[in-house]
């Protein structure tokens, strides 16, 4: 047929395709890294693109949607990250993880260590201006514990208060251990002199919420919460963006940073950062080498932060062969964790030096773990009651798709090479994994623990006390139990920490765990952002950031 037709059809297609491209590219507005000065008014609603013009005083980060903005039910780091900015509690942690006044400007402790009297900051107010009273605190705690609120964790953090159990069980709605003395004064009785009680109050579950707002709108108040924190929720479009706006009347001083924009859609954070779409980003292990390269322009923008968190392999001390401590010790000594840290993890994630993670009192940088000693490990295995009749062993971890992390592969390889034991790796979805751990179905499992408050009790007691509900290794050692009980109420802080360090040593020797790595974060911050520091735990940290776009 005619050549004209070829040209014609081609032209039509080309025009239409170009049209589509025009829709995609041009309508998208200014793309990319041109870094236009921030001359636009910040009042204008930003276009739904991450590479829009940055506004002065606005920090843009990539994040995930919070599951909950109700402090009483939040228990995940994503949710807590927003809640600590929007709400607040009686006390807070500073960036060195020390207790600081917050809604309470000071407090007294009775001589027996069991009664706290909190004096509220007279300036403390909700974001709508209503002053925070002692009654608000009492209400918030009673609500958090009430079974109708459906909080899985409130009892973990408020359970030391006298009468908390009865509220949690639904027997009563009144928290008997909490007395409102007057609007500014709150008396709290706890069941034993536990010095870590104040730490627990820094967790969102103990934060203050607005009774009036919740009564008026019980199911949907979190879409526009009236908090007490330095930031107000301005906008939250699920899966798209969440914007926090400074609470100019914040009782500890108006935030310097006016807005924080969280971009909630997925995708490569590092690429968006390089395109100028966000101002800070985390760096994954895969990208770390290129960022650390001194010739990379990103090198000067890169920072490192320890997380108060540990990665470990837990042994089920009830299940063969790990009911024999010799087998546990042999397994722990047969793996060269330091080598795995330096080779497989490129030195980015350090081998754990013990059980207590960095940032938590009692942590020391010297290595207390069982040493890598293949000969000794083999010998221990030979002395164990499973010598020569080792059952089939499976290591469980969460995950799917059969791609097993390099570090896990290296660990399994260590056992095969040094002990001659073949360990199968079984991956399970989170639901199955946790249920099977609780039911003691796994022989060993790979898991992590993120500290909720910086006290060794939150890891040693919560995970190794024989009667603890979260004792995943089903560990039961009367000597350890006795010391844990003693440490709970030890009044002398130094003696108390020393007790926990003793317990840590006993645990390492008896090896219900094989500590693997201390978790570390790497992140990039644009040079025009100052005062941004990633804290080791989830604590409020945007207030003092300043952003001056070039």
């Amino acid at each position, binding site marked *: 047929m*005619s050549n*004209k*037709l*070829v040209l*014609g*059809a081609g032209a*039509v*297609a080309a025009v*239409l*395709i170009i049209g*589509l491209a025009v829709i*995609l590219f041009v309508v*998208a*507005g200014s*793309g990319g890294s041109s870094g236009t000065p921030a001359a636009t008014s910040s009042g204008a609603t930003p276009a*739904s*693109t*991450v590479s829009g013009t940055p506004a002065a005083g606005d920090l843009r980060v990539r994040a995930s*949607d919070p*599951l*909950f903005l109700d402090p009483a*039910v939040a*228990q*995940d780091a994503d949710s807590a990250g927003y809640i600590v900015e929007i709400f607040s509690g009686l006390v807070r942690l500073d960036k060195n993880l020390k207790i600081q006044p917050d809604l309470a400007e000071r407090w007294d402790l009775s001589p027996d260590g069991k009664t706290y009297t909190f004096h509220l900051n007279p300036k403390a107010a909700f974001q709508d201006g209503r002053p925070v009273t002692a009654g608000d605190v009492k209400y918030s705690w009673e609500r958090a514990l009430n*079974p*109708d609120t*459906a*909080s*899985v*964790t409130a*009892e*973990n953090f408020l359970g030391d208060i006298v009468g908390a159990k009865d509220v*949690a069980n*639904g027997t009563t709605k009144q928290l008997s251990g909490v007395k409102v003395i007057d609007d500014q004064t709150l008396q709290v009785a706890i069941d034993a002199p536990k010095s870590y009680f104040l730490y627990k109050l820094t967790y969102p579950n103990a934060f203050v919420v607005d009774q009036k707002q919740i009564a008026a709108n019980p*199911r*949907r*108040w979190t*879409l526009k919460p009236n908090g007490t924190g330095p930031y107000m929720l301005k906008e939250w479009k*699920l*899966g*798209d963006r969440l914007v926090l706006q400074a609470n100019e009347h914040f009782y500890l001083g108006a935030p310097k940073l006016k807005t924080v924009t969280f971009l909630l*859609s*997925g*995708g*490569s954070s590092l*690429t*968006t950062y390089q395109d100028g779409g966000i101002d800070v980003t985390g760096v994954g292990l895969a990208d770390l080498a290129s960022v650390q390269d001194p010739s990379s322009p990103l090198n000067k923008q890169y920072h490192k932060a320890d997380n108060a968190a540990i990665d470990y392999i837990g042994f089920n001390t009830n299940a063969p062969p790990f009911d024999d401590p010799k087998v546990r010790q042999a397994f722990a000594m047969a793996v060269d964790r330091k080598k795995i840290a330096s080779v497989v993890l490129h030195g980015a994630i350090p081998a754990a030096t013990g059980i207590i993670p960095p940032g938590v009192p009692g942590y020391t940088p010297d290595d207390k773990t069982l040493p890598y000693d293949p000969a000794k490990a083999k010998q221990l295995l030979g002395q164990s009651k499973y010598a020569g009749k080792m059952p089939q062993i499976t290591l469980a971890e969460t995950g799917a798709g059969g791609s097993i992390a390099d570090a896990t592969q290296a660990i399994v390889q260590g056992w095969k090479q040094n002990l001659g034991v073949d360990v199968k790796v079984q991956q399970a*979805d*989170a*639901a*199955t994994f*946790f*249920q099977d*751990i609780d039911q003691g179905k796994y022989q060993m499992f790979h*898991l*992590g623990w*993120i500290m909720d408050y910086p006290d060794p009790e939150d890891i040693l007691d919560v995970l190794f006390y024989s009667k603890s*509900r*979260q004792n*995943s290794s089903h560990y039961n050692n009367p000597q350890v139990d006795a010391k844990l009980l003693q440490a709970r109420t030890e009044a002398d802080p130094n003696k108390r920490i020393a007790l926990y360090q003793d317990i840590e040593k006993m645990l390492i020797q008896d090896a219900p765990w094989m500590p693997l790595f201390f978790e570390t974060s790497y992140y990039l911050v644009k040079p025009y952002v100052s005062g941004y520091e990633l804290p080791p735990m989830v604590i409020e940290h945007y207030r003092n950031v300043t952003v001056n776009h070039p």
Partner: protein
Amino acid sequence: MDGLAGYVVRRLLFLPVVLLVVSFGTFFITRWGPGDPISIYSGQYRDPEAFARVRHTYGLDKPIIVQYGIWLKDIALHGDFGVSFRYRDRTIPEIIGPKIWVSVRLGAYAFILTFLLGIPIGIYAAVKQGTWLDPFLISVFLFFQSIPVLVTVPVLVILLAVKVHWVPPGGFDGIFSRSMIIPTLALGLPGVAGVARLARATTLGALHEDFVRTARAKGLDEFTVITRHVARNAVAPVMTTVIGLSLVGLIEGALITETLLGIPGIGEYTFQSVNAKDYNVILVIVLLITFAFVLANLLVDLVLVAIDPRARLAGGGGP
């Protein structure tokens, strides 16, 4: 057209039965397995007593058949499809509505791409019937049709994002952005061959019609004959048939494409909801997809009847 109207009504009456059966199956399958939304979102906190209390608050401790009854009752009486265990402060339509809208627009892009490429290629192949270009062009796009999106997406990411940095490797920067290019290609290209083949077939048919001969006889040049007379008659049936048929492929493709690329559409959210065992959301999504399939099937059947009167209307039976 009383017979046709009756047929449509009968098919639509069957819809509630289909939805009921599907909802029953989905309800049981999702709630049967290990774990529940409470234990999943609780992550490192595992307090069996607290779990039991929260399960009780949500009625998850009741026998599944009783829960199903309550679920049906709430829909019938209050139009309430239940709570999402992930975003408890929003209703399910509020949660999935914006995500469906993202997917619908992505799907529209893919459709546009499919037709913009498929129809001209089909017409051109028909015109070139008998030369090597005809089988060659169709084969090229059959190749794209044969590759699963699970493969197409990573390959496109490597080619367009990693090698040449034309587009971001994933994510979603709004519906009018470069991040829509890879998903549009991944979802649109597989359909091209189908459209092209249909367009080729209808064009071949039209080429031998009397009005084409008349047009040629009038002395019109070949380009005008094809574009004015042939294409117009060839395109309409292709559009209607393929829209119905590709809906199925688009929903499947969206699930994988959106999840791989981190696009906050309904496909990605389905994946998330299944992982989180967000029972009620999974149910609503499955029911919506069922609904769409039934309607699409009905539409295709009707169009086929309209195109080819020989196709008989199945009496009253299933979709």
